[in-house]
């Protein structure tokens, strides 16, 4: 005989009693391990999605502002031996021909067979005609498309020059294609392809590369290049060898006596211009601009090219004019001319400015030399002045026959020259301050020097490690394992409490055994240790079984997440995955928790004298000292005082109310203890059966208090959290609400260049990136940025800053360390990016330069979720090619606004807010469901308590029957005690929860209805009453009088 044998004997003998403990531990372990495995599964699913959307792509070049040669792909493949695929990646819309359905923000990709090889087993476009396309399954489902059906695909016609730039040509050039569906690509056919980290695949149209190149007038061009199985450094090294000037949209041409570097983008990008100037010591910059009017007194010449260049003897305020202009104006040296020209001000508004120059000299006009004029779209390529479409308002009526004649003979030959610095001071803009660089040597000589000086990667053409970023993002912005532990917290606690309570019952059943062991010379500590070991063994077995069956809980949770709680994750299918380490951690944590529960349950054992324990079965003495009553009262009063202090000092801060609510919960439990002590000391005559029953609650104070505490805590958590479910319709018209008081939110697939009147809303620039809202489970690596004029939002006092002090003006305040100030929604900054106010993040601008963003303000839950908001100025500096506006906060939809935003997807602001809140609502729904299950378990525990109490008191209940009480009266006696406990628990939980959620009820933007919590409370009360009624019924069904006879 040894202790182990004794424990095993006890386990086997009391197996029925221990079954409850085993099941409780099993449940706790299954929930805990299962919750952690939910995290593993979500991560694995996100990883799977990430890999599925990239295929075998490891690095990607673009898509950026450059359209480079398609051959670059083959050249890099040849150098690196890695498979590559050139891609044209555009944004567009897809509509059914009868306009009955329209999909916005569609990814339109021009691909060839190399693309499919990276992610699909077959080329779905093999043999496709130019008018055929493949849709991914999401788009096909959205538009209900079947093979053979036609759609209209519209994409923006790319412009080399940002359409925000002055003289960028026509603004709203888009290309429409009528295409016929050839096939639908599912996940296995690369149908999830996308470069942005999001678990929701984009809507995608795949078209033959050549067809798209032709349609957007970019033959042989691509704007993205995928490469597999190489790292970014290797790919960039290969790029540096293979790139040509054309890939950066640069043209080097021979001119008489030298060569000139220019670009279709009109303005040389500053980094390239600087490098180009270094290519030759005698290089000189050129800036040619269209001047609206050159005037001398009453004489004016419309629309002339003026070139700023060094090399002439001119003072900063002097101008050299050709003899044609001198004749036209009647000007002579010494005359002061005024030059009127457009510059682009804020909001893409054109502002006409005037500068004055003194005529220094008059130049002969011997032959045309339009080489000074950069390739202005709409000017350089037209024969006749009347066909000019430079993208700026022109008064064609002012063009005279002699102007036509000049254009015919001399084209864009400048009519005047000024010094370069003078020109740059008035015409430089964010796109550059040179339209060309000239060299005194010919092109073939300068080209190697130019290639050596210009680094394509710093100019914005560089490979990025997309696979690495995707896998990093798939680690998730949220650890769903921890999240689910949070959601299941009450369920786990309920299971552990049940374990502890059943273990206590099991020990109490063996009180005499405890007494015997003490009488036989076992020390009290040794007895407790024996019980603890026994409890641990049962719990350990339960935990082992629970850890192994935790996958059931995980699968149930994943099923819930992909169906009823789908709003929380936006994933329709999960793959189950569980790491060994997770099982070990979950198992050990559960074991620890179960051991703690059994230790807490057993620690009070063997404290009573052995003789008393041996005499178990005798009447239980109601013990309760005045001291215990006083201390409980004092503890309760201290908690109430703390709650009042928290409310008094915390203002309307939600944290203060929640803290006060929690303190009231503790106070309620402490007062309940005092009440039970008081009841145990009651000496007056109880009036009625119910009073006797209620007094019975004091007999097992610990048991009764546990019942009250479990119910109160459960009610507190479920009701308090449930009250945070927000109604997006409530207060939606208020400026301080999550809608910002705006009526609608618009998002354009193609940029909108027309200004939105300030009275009708706010137009914002947008740099597409990873969605940093709660809707994206991936951690955003490069979030979406919005550019806004801060004063437009500040003037409206739109949205609420969570610190109550920040304002939109903070976007205009430059940071001492050069960081870019940004404002974000709380869900974006805190949860998606993991940052708070004052912290900085590192990002890369579109030219590949790193820059830091500092969060200078955080706004409460809003329709701006998912993006970081920068000032317009900062935005255009970092993302100069992002032209026009693509996001709109709309106050009113006047007919003018409607026209301006006709191709914009507009949704009511409250609807967008509701969509963004769906994640939070989903989380709350999960918490409520699992919390509800916890309460169900807790109330089942109440049923067990009832049965146990009846069992323990069956003799006295039998006595009541023997002396003439009816069975109904006896049942009422039992129920009154337990319904009293239910009422106490629910009241305490309800009152403390109501205090905790008061600010959410009162705050703007939140409309918490009392109906939901009241329904929850009523259901709970009914459930508790039903459980206890059922348990009492079952327990009292046993013939009680037999018990009396047996005694």
């Amino acid at each position: 005989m040894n202790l182990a044998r004794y424990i095993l004997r006890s386990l086997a003998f009391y197996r029925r009693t221990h079954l409850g403990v085993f099941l409780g531990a099993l449940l706790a372990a299954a929930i805990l391990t299962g919750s952690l495995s939910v995290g593993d599964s979500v991560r694995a699913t996100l990883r799977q999605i990430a890999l599925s959307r990239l295929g075998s792509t490891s690095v990607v070049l673009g898509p950026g502002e450059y359209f480079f040669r398609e051959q670059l792909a083959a050249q890099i493949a040849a150098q690196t031996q890695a498979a590559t695929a050139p891609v044209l990646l555009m944004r567009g819309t897809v509509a059914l021909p009868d306009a009955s359905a329209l999909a916005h923000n569609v990814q339109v990709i021009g691909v060839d067979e190399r693309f499919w090889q990276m992610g699909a087993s077959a080329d779905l476009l093999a043999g496709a005609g130019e008018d055929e396309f493949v849709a991914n399954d999401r788009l096909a489902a959205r538009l209900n498309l079947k093979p053979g059906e036609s759609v209209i695909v519209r994409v923006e016609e790319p412009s080399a020059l940002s359409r925000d730039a002055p003289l960028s040509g026509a603004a709203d050039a888009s290309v429409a294609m009528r295409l016929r569906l050839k096939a639908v690509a599912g996940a296995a056919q690369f149908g999830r392809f996308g470069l942005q980290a999001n678990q929701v695949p984009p809507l995608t149209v795949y078209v033959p590369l050549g067809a798209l190149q032709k349609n957007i007038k970019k033959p042989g061009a691509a704007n993205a290049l995928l490469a597999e199985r190489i790292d970014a450094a290797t790919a960039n090294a290969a790029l540096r060898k293979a790139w040509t000037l054309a890939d950066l949209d640069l043209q080097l041409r021979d001119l008489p006596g030298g060569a000139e570097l220019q670009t279709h983008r009109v303005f040389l990008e500053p980094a390239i211009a600087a490098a180009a100037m270094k290519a030759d010591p005698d290089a000189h910059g050129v800036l040619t601009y269209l001047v609206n009017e050159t005037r001398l007194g009453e004489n004016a010449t419309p629309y002339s090219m003026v070139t700023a260049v060094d090399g002439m003897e001119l003072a900063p305020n002097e101008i050299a004019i050709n003899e044609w202009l001198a004749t036209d104006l009647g000007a002579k040296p010494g005359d002061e001319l005024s030059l009127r020209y457009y510059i682009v001000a804020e909001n893409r508004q054109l502002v006409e400015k005037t500068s004055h120059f003194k005529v220094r000299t008059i130049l002969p006009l011997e032959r045309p030399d339009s080489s000074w004029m950069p390739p202005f779209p709409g000017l350089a390529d037209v024969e006749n002045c009347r066909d000019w479409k430079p993208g700026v308002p022109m008064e064609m009526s002012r063009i005279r026959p002699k102007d036509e004649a000049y254009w015919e003979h001399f084209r864009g030959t400048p009519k005047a020259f000024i010094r370069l610095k003078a020109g740059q001071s008035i015409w430089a803009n964010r796109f550059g301050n040179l339209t060309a660089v000239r060299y005194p040597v010919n092109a073939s000589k300068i080209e190697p020097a130019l290639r050596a000086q210009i680094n394509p990667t710093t100019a914005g053409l560089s490979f990025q490690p997309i696979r690495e970023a995707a896998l990093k993002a798939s680690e998730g912005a949220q650890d769903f394992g921890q999240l689910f532990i949070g959601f299941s917290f009450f369920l786990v606690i309920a299971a552990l409490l049940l374990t502890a309570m059943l273990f206590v019952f099991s020990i109490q059943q063996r009180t005499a055994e405890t007494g015997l062991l003490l009488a036989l010379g076992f020390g009290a500590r040794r007895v407790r240790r024996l019980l603890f070991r026994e409890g641990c063994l049962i719990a350990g077995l339960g935990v082992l079984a629970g850890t192994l069956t935790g996958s059931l809980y995980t699968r149930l949770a994943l099923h819930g997440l992909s169906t009823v709680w789908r709003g929380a994750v936006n994933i329709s299918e999960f793959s189950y995955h569980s790491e060994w380490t997770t099982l070990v951690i979950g198992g050990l944590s559960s074991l620890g928790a179960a051991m703690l529960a059994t230790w807490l349950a057993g620690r009070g054992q063997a404290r009573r004298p052995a003789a008393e324990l041996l005499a178990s079965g005798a009447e239980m003495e109601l013990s309760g000292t005045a001291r215990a009553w006083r201390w409980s009262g004092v503890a309760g009063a201290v908690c109430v005082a703390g709650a009042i202090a928290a409310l008094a000092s915390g203002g309307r801060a939600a944290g203060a109310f929640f803290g006060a609510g929690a303190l009231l919960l503790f106070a309620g439990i402490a007062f309940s203890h005092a009440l039970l002590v008081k009841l145990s000391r009651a000496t007056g005559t109880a009036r009625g059966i119910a009073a006797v029953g209620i007094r019975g609650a004091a007999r097992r104070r610990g048991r009764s208090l546990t019942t009250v505490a479990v119910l109160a805590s459960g009610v507190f958590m479920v009701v308090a959290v449930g009250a945070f479910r927000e109604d997006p319709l409530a207060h939606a018209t208020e400026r301080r609400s999550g809608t910002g008081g705006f009526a609608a939110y618009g998002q354009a697939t193609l940029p909108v260049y027309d200004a939105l009147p300030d009275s009708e809303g706010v137009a914002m620039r947008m740099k597409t990136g990873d969605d940093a809202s709660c809707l994206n489970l991936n951690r955003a690596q490069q979030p979406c940025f919005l550019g806004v004029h801060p004063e437009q939002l500040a003037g409206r006092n739109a949205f609420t800053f969570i610190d109550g002090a920040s304002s939109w003006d903070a976007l205009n305040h430059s940071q001492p360390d050069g960081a870019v100030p940004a404002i974000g929604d709380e869900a974006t900054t805190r949860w998606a990016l993991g940052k708070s106010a004052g912290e900085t993040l590192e990002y890369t601008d579109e030219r590949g330069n790193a820059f830091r963003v500092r969060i200078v303000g955080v706004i409460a839950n809003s329709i701006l979720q998912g993006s970081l908001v920068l000032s317009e100025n900062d935005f255009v500096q970092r993302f100069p090619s992002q032209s026009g506006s693509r996001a709109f906060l709309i106050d009113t939809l006047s007919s003018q606004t409607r026209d301006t935003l006709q191709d914009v997807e507009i949704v009511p602001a409250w609807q967008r807010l509701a969509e963004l809140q769906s994640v939070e609502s989903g989380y709350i729904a999960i918490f409520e469901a699992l919390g509800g299950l916890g309460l169900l378990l807790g109330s089942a525990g109440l049923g067990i308590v009832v049965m146990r109490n009846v069992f323990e008191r069956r003799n006295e209940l039998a006595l009541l029957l023997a002396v003439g009480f009816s069975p109904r009266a006896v049942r009422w006696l039992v129920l009154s005690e337990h319904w009293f406990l239910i009422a106490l628990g629910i009241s305490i939980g309800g009152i403390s929860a109501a205090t905790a959620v008061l600010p959410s009820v009162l705050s703007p933007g939140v409309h918490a209805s009392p109906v939901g919590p009241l329904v929850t409370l009523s259901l709970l009360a009914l459930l508790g009453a039903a459980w206890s009624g059922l348990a009492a019924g079952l327990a009292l069904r046993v013939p009680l009088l037999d018990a009396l006879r047996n005694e």
Partner: protein
Amino acid sequence: MTNPSPTPPLLELRNVCKSYRSDGGGTLDVLKNVTHTLARGESMAVLGPSGCGKSTLLNLIGTLDRPTSGQVLLEGVDLQALDERGIARVRNRQVGFVFQLHHLLPQCTVLENVLIPTLADPQSRPGAACTQRAERLLERVGLADRRHHRPGQLSGGERQRTALVRALINQPPLLLADEPTGSLDHASAESLGELLAELNREEGVTLVVVTHSRELARRMSRIYKIRDGALEALGA
């Protein structure tokens, strides 16, 4: 030449009082200044009506309860002065207890029940010697063939004999029996009484028996009665 110091009595009660607080705020004196000594190998029976304090006296001797005042000395050691561990050692090594209800562990066999007290001391590990002694004692009380049975498979008399062997397993000098025949039929009670007397004689175990049974009491060398909280000798 000095006289050797006299051997202390096995058990000595010095002015032992035990009182309980009553509901009305007063006290109920159960034992009043009980003074008594018991030498090794003696046996005594304590008689008295229910509630007179017989079991209380036994519990005080067996350290299951503590006196309100006075001293209980076992082999000259004041039990009041012992800490919890010391008391546990006394219960385990110096006192054997037989209760009216046998309190056998239903999950263990007869042999295992007997060996339970050998597990009490965390420092010592029960060896084969303990098992042999248990088997010898079981044979002595006629339960050799029942040693692998569970308590539920035994008769009342067998259970009580098992409890008796359990009380003797650690060879305590003092055996306390609280109404040992109270729940037995006449034949079983007779048999157990005889066994107790034999053990007292043959094993030299000092015996204190609390009983209502005069037949059992007569088997003890001294008989006492508790009246008004005092121990009165009735005869030998």
